[in-house]
């Protein structure tokens, strides 16, 4: 199920800013161990963010995204206490969902 994400959401002037830090190795499949064996690709392929059940951002990731991916985006609306939910899925089919309440 992967490790928990850190999600911070805050609303200001009617716009909610969401910062997400996912925990994932994001292996490219191109890196070699010291003995020359290739480390298999293992990375997040899809991310979806929702606010009160409505999708506010969808992303597809490739191997070029850094380890422990960081994401910032903003959407109109949102109120203090409402929930923002983020879900990722990786190329092995593992998924993780976390949520955070919007702060002021």
């Amino acid at each position: 199920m992967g490790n928990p994400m850190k999600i911070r959401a805050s609303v200001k002037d009617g716009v909610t800013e969401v910062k997400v830090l996912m925990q994932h190795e994001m292996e490219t499949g191109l890196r070699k161990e010291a003995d020359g064996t290739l480390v298999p690709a293992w990375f997040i392929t899809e991310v979806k963010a929702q606010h009160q059940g409505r999708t506010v951002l969808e992303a597809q990731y490739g191997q070029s995204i850094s380890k422990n991916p960081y994401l910032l985006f903003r959407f109109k609306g949102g109120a203090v206490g409402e929930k923002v939910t983020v879900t990722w899925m990786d190329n092995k089919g593992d998924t993780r969902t976390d949520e955070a309440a919007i702060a002021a």
Partner: protein
Amino acid sequence: MNRDIDLERRKALKTGGGIGLMALFGALGLLQPGKAFAEWNKTAFSSKSMDEALAALGVEKPDNSDAIKLTVPEIAENGSVVPVTVACTLANVQQISIFVDKNPNVLAANFTFPQGTEGIVTTRVKMGQTANVVALVKADGKFYRAAREVKVTAGGCGG
């Protein structure tokens, strides 16, 4: 609902054995309506050149645009973590894609913006060597691009 079923089948195909089955059941719990993912664009994400990637995304030669503000460091000491921010003042931004033109797989990420989500996104990318970071923005059905070079002093691949 169809998309949910597709995802279930996809996961069922991908996973196998006991642990895989557990993962499948876990995922099923998450599969409420509207939570299904869009299909990952394998062709675009395996593209080895900008032209190939743009073709896979179905994009003709996009125009350069000053309305896209692409924020990247001029010099990255550590190529494995290069912050990239794309902010655009264009109306009705539908999609932002980020490329690193010298990476083995040039497309780094593809973001889709529903109505009401602002045209700004920050992420971090790996860069194997000095290269151009390219932002491709789809706004109101038209594609625009902006590019900036990042000098990399230590690569992000193979560490």
